[in-house]
């Protein structure tokens, strides 16, 4: 994976001192809270209900054991012994003291980590396929491009005070594991007929209160021109977006208001201009970065056999292990969704254990997923049983990837000052209702996503079953949505009807699932059945 040189290190160190000075000026009263807020947000520091929350960037979801151990140390030293993986492959800490934040950042910088642009009206941490470099179906590893764009978009002087946040994702396979088209700018690496590498470019996606699925605005962009094209998109948006209403300033609103054709025309006009400026990074810099992502020294001639005589292990392999591009190796998913737990939460001790396993069995690589789980991307099949035993002993061996208990949930009203309703207890109650492993496997793939307010951090628009918590005359109320997808068959979930209270929403989810079991044909996923039969049969089951 990528390693900082002295320049990268100098940039991160300078940001630590920059933030230390901003914090000093805030504490001394030289900055008002209104002035400080955008500055701290650009460095990932939110003020939540009970304390500050710090969001640490994990660029394109890739990190190593040394970094994970530092994250564990920070959890113990600055937080309450745990951290929370987020839907942008980042990790956040919920109990941070403002005056300690600069020291925390200085510690992160010692392991080549930071919180730069993890929040605020900036170009956010770039997300990518969590199986990059390991997936059997990828054209190439998308991470060198993600790293190049990380550098190109870090402290970009023109685009550091954008109308709103701006999210980028990069993948290089047909299967979409990164919720690509729910991003402001989505890039899929493709090859044209001449075999040249380029990007399919999508723009104008996003969740929030006004969801849009990104439009394809380029079917092939030569890869070396990506920074020019990205700057063209950003300039069109920065110059023309509204600034009078924070809810209408995301790029998706501009793309929608201008129309896909006019937006594309303006981007192409700016793109032609940017190409004349020579701002694109040269091939030599791409090659330098790509060298860090060379495949690890996989052994050849390994057996693909896995001894599945332990039935619990066999169930875990069946659910959590994915095909690797190299014979003899596998991708192992680690669930952070134990029944009754908080989706995405992990203790410092569990972090240390995952770090140990990555170091010994996965070429020192760990991945964070947008579904708030972890991955060991390069495990020898012969080592899977040992890895599973260690995970099992640490409470990390749930076999529920993409099943009904693998729920995405935002922190909700338990932590977040924006939330209208709690998300975590709803996730816990649904997981408890469906705790039976046989029942989960029988239901099959079913992605439930829960947000505690319309900002949609829990991706409810993309949930096969989505749940949105709202405030209804002072009490929490939960709306049910069906039919969303964050995969390559992207779709927006639709609301079923009137909302429910806390118990009612769990019952409504169960009635939805039971109706699916009655209606499904062989091998049909929940989403397939919903698309075939439509909303009405489910409404009838839910509302009677």
């Amino acid at each position, binding site marked *: 994976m990528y390693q900082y040189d002295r320049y990268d290190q100098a940039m991160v160190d300078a940001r630590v001192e920059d933030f230390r000075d901003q914090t000093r000026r805030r504490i001394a009263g030289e900055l008002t809270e209104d002035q400080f807020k955008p500055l701290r947000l650009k460095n990932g520091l939110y003020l939540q209900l009970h304390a500050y929350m710090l969001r640490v960037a994990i660029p394109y979801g890739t990190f190593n054991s040394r970094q994970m151990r530092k994250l564990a140390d920070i959890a113990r030293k600055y937080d309450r012994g745990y951290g929370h993986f987020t839907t942008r492959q980042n990790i956040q800490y919920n109990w941070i003291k403002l005056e300690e934040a600069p020291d925390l950042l200085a510690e992160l910088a010692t392991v080549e980590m930071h919180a730069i642009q993890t929040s605020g009206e900036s170009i956010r941490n770039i997300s990518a396929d969590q199986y990059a470099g390991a997936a059997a179906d990828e054209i190439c590893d998308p991470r060198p491009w993600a790293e190049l764009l990380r550098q190109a978009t870090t402290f970009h002087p023109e685009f550091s005070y954008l109308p709103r946040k701006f999210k980028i994702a990069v993948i290089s396979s047909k299967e979409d594991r990164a919720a690509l088209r729910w991003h402001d700018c989505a890039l899929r690496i493709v090859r044209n007929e001449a075999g040249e590498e380029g990007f399919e470019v999508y723009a104008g996606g996003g969740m929030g209160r006004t969801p849009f699925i990104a439009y394809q605005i380029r079917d092939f962009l030569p890869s070396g021109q990506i920074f020019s094209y990205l700057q063209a998109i950003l300039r069109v948006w920065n*110059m023309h977006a509204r600034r009078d209403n924070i809810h209408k300033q995301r790029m998706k609103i501009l793309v929608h208001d201008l129309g896909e054709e006019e937006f594309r025309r303006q981007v192409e006009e700016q793109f032609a201009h940017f190409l004349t400026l020579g*701002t694109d990074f040269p091939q030599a810099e791409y090659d330098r970065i790509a060298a860090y992502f060379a495949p690890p020294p996989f052994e050849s001639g390994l057996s693909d056999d896995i001894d599945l005589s332990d039935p619990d292990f066999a169930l875990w392999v069946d659910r959590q292990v994915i095909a690797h591009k190299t014979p003899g190796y596998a991708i192992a998913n680690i669930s952070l969704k134990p029944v009754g737990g908080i989706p995405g939460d992990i203790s410092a001790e569990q972090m240390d254990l995952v770090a140990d396993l990555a170091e010994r069995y996965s070429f020192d690589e760990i991945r964070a997923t947008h579904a708030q789980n972890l991955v060991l991307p390069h495990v020898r099949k012969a080592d899977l049983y040992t890895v599973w035993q260690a995970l099992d002993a640490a409470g990390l061996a749930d076999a529920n990837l993409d099943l009904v208990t693998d729920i995405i949930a935002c922190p909700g009203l338990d932590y977040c000052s924006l939330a209208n309703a709690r998300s975590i207890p709803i996730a816990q109650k649904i997981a408890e209702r469906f705790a039976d492993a046989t029942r989960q496997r029988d239901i099959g793939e079913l992605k439930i996503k829960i947000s505690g307010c319309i900002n949609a951090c829990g991706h409810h628009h993309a949930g096969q079953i989505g749940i949105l918590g709202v405030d209804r005359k002072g009490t929490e109320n939960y709306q049910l949505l069906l039919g969303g997808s964050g995969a390559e068959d992207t779709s927006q979930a639709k609301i079923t009807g009137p909302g429910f209270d806390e118990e009612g929403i769990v019952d409504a989810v169960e009635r939805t699932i039971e109706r699916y079991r009655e209606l499904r044909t062989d091998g049909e996923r929940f989403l397939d059945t919903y698309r075939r039969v439509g909303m009405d049969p489910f409404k009838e089951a839910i509302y009677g």
Partner: protein
Amino acid sequence: MAEAALRFRNDDPVEEPAVTLDAFLEQAGASAVRIEAGDDPRRLIPQLGRVKLVEVGFPRFRDGRGFSTARVLREAGYDGEIRAEGDILVDLIFFMRRCGFDSFAPQAPLNRADVDAALSRYEYVYQHAADGAVPIWKLRHG
């Protein structure tokens, strides 16, 4: 017109009042123009030859439209003064200098020591901008 409290140019400041973009385009003798957030700076490009001062308004420091305005004018070859006026915090100055601003008329006075610290804190930059700073990739590859 706001007087520049901070100026990074050696020539004499323009004394003429800056007029609105619409007025400037109609007044053939004008040489100082004010561009508000939301104005399209590209309208000025055909007339750049007679421009000596562009004042760019920042109604709120969070409104970053003026950053693009300065870049657009510098990319069109304008080398006269570009002044940032309005709600300007010390934390914006480094990015503004990179975008091509070379004078500043902040509503509230800036602490000069803080400005100097802000301008010297980042030794390197990752990308080309209007300030001529050499991006890191170029330092890496010579």
